[in-house]
């Protein structure tokens, strides 16, 4: 079974530039998550999709971050314009459903450095 695929793996951009990350979840998984992981600060849920609808985007900085999952399969996370503090690992994950105890499968992450 193929895992969660993310690209690009690594990206270095200058502040105020834009960047987009792509995620293809495990086939059949209705729930898709984007997390931001900053070393020493833990992992924050940016947005959660159920099929192509947004379930939770309460911690997404909407002035600069956007995400979509138009056909309920793969998803794109965009940052425009990027700030230095956006340097982080962006983890995409998927699960069969969003009920408690469900196994969430993570991709390898997209490592962003903003200089």
């Amino acid at each position, binding site marked *: 079974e193929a895992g969660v695929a993310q690209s690009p793996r690594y990206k270095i951009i200058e502040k105020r530039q834009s960047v987009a990350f792509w995620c293809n979840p495990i086939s059949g998984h209705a729930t898709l998550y984007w997390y931001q992981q900053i070393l020493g600060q*833990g992992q924050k849920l940016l947005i959660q999709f159920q099929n192509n609808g947004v379930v*939770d985007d309460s911690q997404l900085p909407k002035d600069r971050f956007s995400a979509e999952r138009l056909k309920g399969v793969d998803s794109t996370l965009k940052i425009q314009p990027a700030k230095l503090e956006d340097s982080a690992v962006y983890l995409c994950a998927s699960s069969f459903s*969003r009920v408690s105890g469900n*196994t969430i499968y*993570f991709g390898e992450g997209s490592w962003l450095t903003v200089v």
Partner: protein
Amino acid sequence: TQLLEQSPQFLSIQEGENLTVYCNSSSVFSSLQWYRQEPGEGPVLLVTVVTGGEVKKLKRLTFQFGDARKDSSLHITAAQPGDTGLYLCAGFTDKLIFGTGTRLQVFP
């Protein structure tokens, strides 16, 4: 804001030692999960605990869910260099909340 505090934040030990990582919150969770993340990889699920007081063992790893379902612990017996990584607890209410993480380094 729901918070899951893990302690210690960093841990460096010699091969063969035992260790315990704690995960604490003021919130009650319907389930709690532990993940391990190795450098350059995404987190991988180790275990899910659901019932208060539940204990699960995975080889040298023992996981316990607190009676009140607000806290959990991970105990590793006779740690090995292969145990090195970032350990994350995550509690589920209406969404999955991740802990602050414990970075473990086991030296041979």
